[in-house]
């Protein structure tokens, strides 16, 4: 066990070990890239979420967290790649909430992203309602869930009566948000209006800490801004044309003429485009998911969001 040859051997072994470890990390990276969702396959194959709960030997909470993280990752990764369907989203959320029925954020995430139309959601509002109903059964005193239910009925299904009922039930809870009463009243009269939509999205934004839900709500609010501004600008252009007889080619002309204080910009800071036929469009349609105005008439296919 002496000296030189021993040290030599140790050196060789050490370098070999590090090399192979590095190699294994590289191989693992390749594997990860080659099968991004493979770990979710088991979601399709689990006999039922109740069976999974039984098999988890009491570690429900941990498993729920794992499935919750998987759900968020699943949605995020697919959304980034502009997927047009999210078949595993409902199963993942269903399992998560079966394992931990009090994980409120999972129900809320589903309310938003199951209901929205692809590519921003699964386009399955009925399943979203199912999920929320399940959530309400397990958490009858949480106003957030009633709120989400009303929201779903109002914004995704156009059913203002059901929305009113949901807001109303929520408003009667011992610890509730004062807005629910107002929203209930609003549904009856102003169901389809833009202002109602704005109110709802603002409330959603303020009611949660989840970054995914918040940023989604923010984008909706920005889109509502555009939907409100574009018709106003087009109207302005029409009136200018009628008054001056000139077909304006850019907003700059209106600024010079004193009709506008400055070049109008959208919530993202890009100036609006004025087209020769008097319509107004956003600079970068790709950046906008939820707008109904300000887009080119043919080609872009946004199935219109329910009001």
């Amino acid at each position, binding site marked *: *066990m*002496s000296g030189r*040859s*021993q040290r030599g051997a140790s050196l060789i072994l050490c370098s070999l070990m590090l090399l192979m470890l590095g190699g294994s990390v590289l191989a693992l990276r390749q594997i990860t890239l080659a099968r991004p969702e493979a770990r979710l396959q088991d979601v399709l194959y689990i006999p039922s979420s109740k069976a999974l709960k039984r098999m988890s030997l009491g570690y429900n909470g941990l498993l729920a967290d794992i499935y919750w993280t998987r759900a968020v990752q699943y949605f995020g990764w697919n959304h980034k790649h502009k997927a047009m369907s999210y078949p595993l989203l409902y199963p993942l959320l269903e399992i998560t909430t079966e394992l931990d029925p009090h994980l409120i954020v999972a129900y809320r995430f589903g309310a938003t992203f199951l209901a929205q139309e692809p590519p921003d959601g699964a386009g399955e509002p009925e399943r979203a309602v199912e999920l929320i109903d399940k959530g309400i059964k397990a958490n009858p005193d949480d106003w957030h869930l009633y709120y989400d239910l009303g929201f779903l009925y109002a914004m995704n299904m156009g059913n203002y009566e059901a929305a009113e009922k949901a807001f109303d039930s929520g408003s009667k809870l011992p610890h509730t948000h004062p807005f629910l009463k107002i929203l209930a009243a609003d549904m009856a009269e102003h169901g389809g209006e833009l202002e109602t939509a704005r109110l709802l999205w603002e409330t959603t934004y303020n009611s949660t800490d989840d970054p995914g839900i918040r940023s989604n709500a923010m984008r909706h609010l920005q889109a509502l801004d555009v939907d409100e501004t574009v018709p106003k600008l087009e109207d302005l252009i029409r009136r200018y044309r009628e008054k001056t007889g000139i077909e304006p080619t850019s907003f700059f002309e209106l600024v010079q003429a004193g009709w506008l204080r400055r070049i109008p910009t959208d919530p993202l800071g890009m100036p609006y485009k004025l087209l020769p036929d008097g319509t107004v469009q956003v600079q970068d349609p790709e950046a906008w998911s939820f707008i109904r105005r300000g887009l080119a008439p043919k080609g872009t296919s946004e199935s219109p969001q329910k009001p």
Partner: protein
Amino acid sequence: MAAIETVALRKTYQVGFWRKKPKVALRPLNLSVREGEVFGYLGPNGAGKTTTLRLLMGLAAPTGGSFKILGGEINDPAIRSRIGFLPEQPYFYDYLTPLELLNYYAALSAVPAKDRTRRIEATLKRVGLQEDAWGTQLRKFSKGMLQRVGLAQAIVHEPKVVVLDEPMSGLDPMGRREVRDLIEELNHEGKTIFFSTHILSDAEALCDRVAVLNRGELRGVGVVADLVGSVKGNVEIMWHGTAANTDMEAKGFSCHAVGETVRAIVPEMEVDKAIDILRNHGARLMAVTPMRTTLEDYFLAKLGAPAEVTQ
């Protein structure tokens, strides 16, 4: 060429919970074993004999110093293949039979496959293991049988140097006799034998030279033939009949009687005087034996003496 040569070989263990306390197991050892010798490594239990052997066999790393075996490093497989080792209280894979075990060892020691069976069987016969035990799992063996298997694995590959740690332990007198004979045989074949023991009579009978170790320190090295057998100057007399005892005591010869048989140790010059007294009392002489130094005397002397610089 020396078969085994150590230069200031030492070993210190760090013991204690934080491994701070040093325990010196072996102080710098300078030892030289000649080829073809039978060398005895003596010392009481805990003297550091096993530690030395572990260092020599490459099982533990020395804290300082160096050593060579057959002029080479223990790391070198060529050197290893020429050494045979029997550790103290060896254990073997108890689920194997002696044949399987030796086959395994022989393969590891590069004994060519075609010679293996022949050599293994010859070796097993040589160490005195009965044939009907060759196919039995080792877990069923007695200590003595295991010791024989241990010797077999140490020599099956025809090493030039054989290192044995307490080879006689666990053996009955018959067995010890056989091992002593085996060691002599191996030595006659030209093998160097280096073994440690605390049984001095075995060492005295077998060794060319011995070293004495105590508390990790080398106390002395000597040639057995020189150390043993010199007449100490005393004579032991044994006789039958207690009548003479009083007179013997009076002359200063202390007597030890067991029944009617009496012994006394008498300086060489007074032997005639003593015998006269006995004859006068009609005692029947049984034996008159000059006493010689034994290895035990040397051993005990060296244990007490301060450390020696070796030759």
